[in-house]
């Protein structure tokens, strides 16, 4: 088996992984970095992020305001000290990206421009047209080329972490082009593999978003935190789930039901005004907007389309010129994929799974409760999103916590030696044998696509926008059944060169583990908070019992064991989460309270 030895190994080369790698290379060029990705870095799913990245920028904005928007947006399940650090670092990271060449959209005076985003009180979202993630990813990838200490392992598929003597000491990967194995020994490992949206049927995610890093850490005893919080993005393409960015609404788009009525005003988000008011109506948070769709559908006020019930995203009043300038990709997607000219007709949309708020349990400095292991980005639960992420906080998160993970993993790597090669080699051999066993399964078993489809449908049925115990239990039962059937999964392809079916089978194992963590965490949370909404007698938030992070622990062949951990509250006591006119009143009351205390 081929062996490489480095100081820090990073699994995943999207925004967070690249930012981490650059942070290490810049701070200490003598440290060697392995950057491992199952795709070429520029294919990573960061590429698909559209709307922008949040950072307090304007003179009348404050870190305070970004903090409060984020914490209230997360329904108070955020780690408040971590949020405070995050908002404080955000602007510097945007400037750093600018210095690296990111083509941010500009104001006439040459400064970077900002746009409005859902749940954000003041415009603070930096953007590069409507391809912000694409530009950030390419900027980071291209910048990373400057640094000779970063050694890339492109198209290498990580099958397991190597944990020995109580700490992570590397990983085993398949070089996809040859099907050969490569052991990468490292003093510390950063997981930056992105989310797990593909556990759900209708989702905005790329095919590679299969929860790999979450499952890898989970199987080694690291809990997955707050996994029940899954974000439905309210404006997605029927059938495929492809995303129409929130910036459509930031730029002034409306959501209409079948009567042409801006229905959000019926769900505590009004008043409806002709131009967008921040934190109201179409600029409310994603969980509330997706929930409003669900109610409209129940009331029979949606439109029937070939792929289900839809509402309309109406951009016509913005005019073709502005749409082409600010939302060029959206324009193209609507025309090419739906045959809809958004300057002339409204776009049919529905909610689809977009983002996993939870992830690998991490402290405020990205460290997992396993020595030497760090995580950053969507795979990580560093604690800033709580029960509902605000749009444009996640791209910023990649940068802020990618950098932190890099610095921390580098610092740790300097303190520990490489472990004993024989022990690590033996563990790698075991992992290799497990991966190869899938290739040797007898034929006549289950098809990968069948299991994946049943899993994704079951997750949608049980862990969708609104949940009940009965439906969640049914999903938990289904997942247990699928785990059994997964043992008989068979593949047509027994070869080694570019065997993507083999990788799909391994990914399905990751997906099933993550799906179980989501479903069981959801079933155990007997309250409604943020994106986790229940209809079965737990419709209210219950701070007395559930102002807690859930922790899903891998438990052998059985379902996960669910435990709870404390939430760090510093400055913001849980309050009423209100938007629109009611939200403005609540904000004013909060400020008055704080003035009294100050």
């Amino acid at each position, binding site marked *: 088996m081929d062996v490489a030895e480095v100081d820090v190994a990073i699994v995943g080369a999207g925004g967070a992984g690249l930012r981490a790698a650059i942070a290490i290379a810049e701070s200490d060029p003598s440290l060697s970095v392995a950057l491992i990705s199952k795709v070429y870095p520029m294919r990573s799913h960061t590429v698909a992020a559209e709307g922008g990245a949040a950072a307090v920028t304007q003179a009348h904005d404050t870190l305070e305001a970004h903090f409060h928007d984020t914490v209230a947006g997360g329904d108070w399940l955020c780690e408040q000290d971590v949020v405070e650090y995050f908002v404080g670092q955000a602007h510097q990271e945007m400037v750093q990206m600018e210095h690296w*060449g990111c*083509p941010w959209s500009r104001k006439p005076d*040459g400064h970077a421009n900002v746009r409005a985003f859902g749940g954000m009180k003041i415009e603070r979202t930096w953007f590069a047209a409507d*391809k912000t993630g694409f*530009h950030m990813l390419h900027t980071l990838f291209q910048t990373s080329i400057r640094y000779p200490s970063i050694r890339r392992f492109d198209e290498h598929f990580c099958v397991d972490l190597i944990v020995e003597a109580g700490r992570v000491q590397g990983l085993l990967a398949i070089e996809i082009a040859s099907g050969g194995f490569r052991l990468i020994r490292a003093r510390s490992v950063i997981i930056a593999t992105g989310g797990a949206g593909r556990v759900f049927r209708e989702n905005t995610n790329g095919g590679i978003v299969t929860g790999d890093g979450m499952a890898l850490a989970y199987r080694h005893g690291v809990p997955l935190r707050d996994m029940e919080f899954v974000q439905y993005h309210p404006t997605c393409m029927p059938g495929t789930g492809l995303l129409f960015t929130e910036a459509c609404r930031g730029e002034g788009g409306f959501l209409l039901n079948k009567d042409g009525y801006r229905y959000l005003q019926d769900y505590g988000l009004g008043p409806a005004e002709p131009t967008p008011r921040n934190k109201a109506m179409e600029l409310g948070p994603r969980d509330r907007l997706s929930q409003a769709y669900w109610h409209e559908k129940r009331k029979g006020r949606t439109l029937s389309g070939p792929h289900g019930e839809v509402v309309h995203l109406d951009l016509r009043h913005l005019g073709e010129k502005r749409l082409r300038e600010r939302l060029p990709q959206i324009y193209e*997607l609507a025309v090419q994929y739906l045959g809809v000219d958004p300057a002339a007709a409204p776009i049919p949309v529905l909610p689809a799974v977009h983002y996993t708020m939870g992830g690998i349990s991490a402290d405020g400095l990205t460290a997992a409760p396993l020595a030497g292991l760090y995580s950053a980005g969507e795979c990580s639960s560093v604690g800033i999103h709580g029960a509902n992420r605000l749009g444009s906080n996640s791209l910023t998160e990649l940068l802020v916590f990618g950098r932190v993970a890099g610095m921390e993993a580098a610092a740790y790597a300097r303190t520990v030696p490489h472990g004993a090669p024989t022990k690590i080699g033996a563990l790698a051999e075991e992992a290799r044998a497990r991966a190869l066993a899938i290739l040797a399964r007898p034929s006549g078993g289950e098809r990968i*696509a069948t299991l994946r489809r049943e899993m994704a449908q079951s997750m949608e049925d049980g862990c969708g926008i609104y949940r009940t115990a009965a439906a969640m239990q049914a999903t938990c039962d289904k997942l247990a059944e699928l785990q059994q059937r997964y043992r008989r999964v068979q593949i047509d392809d027994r070869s080694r*060169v570019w065997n993507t079916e083999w990788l799909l089978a391994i990914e399905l194992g990751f997906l099933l583990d993550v799906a179980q963590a989501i479903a069981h965490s959801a079933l155990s949370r007997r309250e409604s908070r943020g994106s986790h909404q229940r209809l079965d007698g737990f419709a209210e938030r219950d701070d007395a019992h559930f102002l807690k992070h859930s922790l899903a622990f891998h438990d052998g062949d059985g379902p996960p064991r669910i435990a709870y951990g404390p939430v760090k509250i510093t400055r913001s006591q849980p309050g009423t989460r209100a938007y629109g006119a009611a939200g403005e009143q609540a904000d004013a009351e909060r400020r008055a309270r704080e003035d009294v205390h100050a």
Partner: protein
Amino acid sequence: MPEPKNIEICVLRYHPEHDPEPAWRSYQVPCTDDMSVLQGLQHIKDEIDGTLGFRWSCRMAICGSCGMMVNGKPRLSCQTFLRDLQPGPVRIEALAHLPIERDLIVDVGEFVNKLEAIKPYLIPREPRTLAEGEYLQTPAQLERFEQYTSCINCMLCYAACPEYGLNRDFIGPGVIALLHRYNADSRDGGQAQRQPILNAEEGVWSCMAVGYCSEVCPKQVDPANAVNQNKAVSARDYFLRFLAPKGAAP
């Protein structure tokens, strides 16, 4: 759900472990009006033949993974719809001019090596600390290079380029567009460092100005335009070298 009708998809298959050369295989795929070529291939892989190899991810023409030849033309399979290819058969091959690793999967390494070689990162004209804030850049300055930032590295232009087909050392349209992107950025001062790459035999002068690269570009980057602009720059650079010694200001 719309009622599916079948379409025939023929794929040029090749597996280096057991095929002496690529060979066509035909599949019958149920097809609805909103299905992309990629979805057709996914159907084959999921339901008919799990051994079919192709790259894909985002499904929305931004990750650049799924380039292939569709009826002889370089296309992103996610952005090409079966309804436009009726009644079929649809012929799918790996991107032209690039070595096939397996089935529809080509070697990307050569392209990435070229991309890395041109210093595709900002070499600041005037270094600036973070505390000094962002560089100012007006919308007009941004517009001078913005279209060249849109390249998704899908390599369709390499499959379209007749010169690249003859000479794989040519750095090619996509990478020249990226080089131009940095040279044209008001913040960048790295042009002199990148110029030798353009001037070399494998640089802009290899281009035969066919322009098919721009025609197939799914992101309207117009690499042919970047190449042409740099032919002018390279020519000027060539003549200036007779007038001024190296290192002297032109």
